[in-house]
């Protein structure tokens, strides 16, 4: 009976796990039960989801640009040189 009553520490693990796989029914119920009474763990869950959404929405070719960086001049030159070798060598 007690194995679906989780502590906050356990719940944080279970919430994380539930983001990676479908948990057994009893554990899902355990999470829901705990969250009904625990504001902090509810907050924790929301924050994890928020981070995931942020990471996933920033995905794709356009908006992975969160990191503001560009190919260095040297890097570009090096790549160009190697590409030329390939394209011209292939002809």
């Amino acid at each position, binding site marked *: 009976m007690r194995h679906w009553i989780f502590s906050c520490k356990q719940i944080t693990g279970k919430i994380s796990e539930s983001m990676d*796989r479908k948990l057994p029914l009893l554990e899902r119920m355990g999470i829901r039960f705990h969250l009904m009474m625990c504001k902090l763990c509810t907050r*924790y869950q929301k924050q994890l989801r928020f981070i995931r959404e942020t990471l*996933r929405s920033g995905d794709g070719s*356009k908006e992975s*640009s*969160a990191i503001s*960086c560009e*190919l260095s001049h040297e890097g570009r030159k090096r790549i160009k040189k190697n590409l030329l070798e390939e394209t011209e060598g292939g002809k």
Partner: protein
Amino acid sequence: MPLESKQENDPLVWLEQHGDSLYRFARSRVRDSFAAEDLVQETLLGAYRSRDKFSGQSAVSTWLIGILKHKIMDYYRKLTPESGDDTIDEFAYNMDGLFNEKEKWKIKPGDWGGDPKSVYERKELMAAIHTCLGEMPEKMSRVYTLREMEGATTDEICKLFQTGKSNCWVILYRARMLLRRCLEISWFGEKE
């Protein structure tokens, strides 16, 4: 449908038009800037070699990103044997401090307020996330990035890192705990 204009077929043009975005994509997943550059190069070479296979149904950029993703996976695969779990274990203590002996929150999750809405804020937030990821043990951040950004399944990750599922979940759990905490301090400006 093969590529029509000669221009579209030219890797130098790809480099010109998509080089930076490919590089950013690589850098958000691979820390080493030289490795990221190599990945861009490998992608363009790979694309050039398989240019006949490009169906023209998707945009060139999408096609290139697809190839880059494979290159990144290969890169991870090659790196894996060197990185052990030791560094990850060292981070266990960080978590214990968050809870008291009754396993209740000792350092309580703060109120993060509303979600950042403006593009500027989102960009800043992403930058903060990447800084935090940079502070994690490398294997941990790699596993985490694969899961959250690429949406890889735990099965795929286990295969890639040759580790058991439960270990994967533990790594992901710790990564989330660390990142959440790191953001709380760095981005949401919690007073310590």
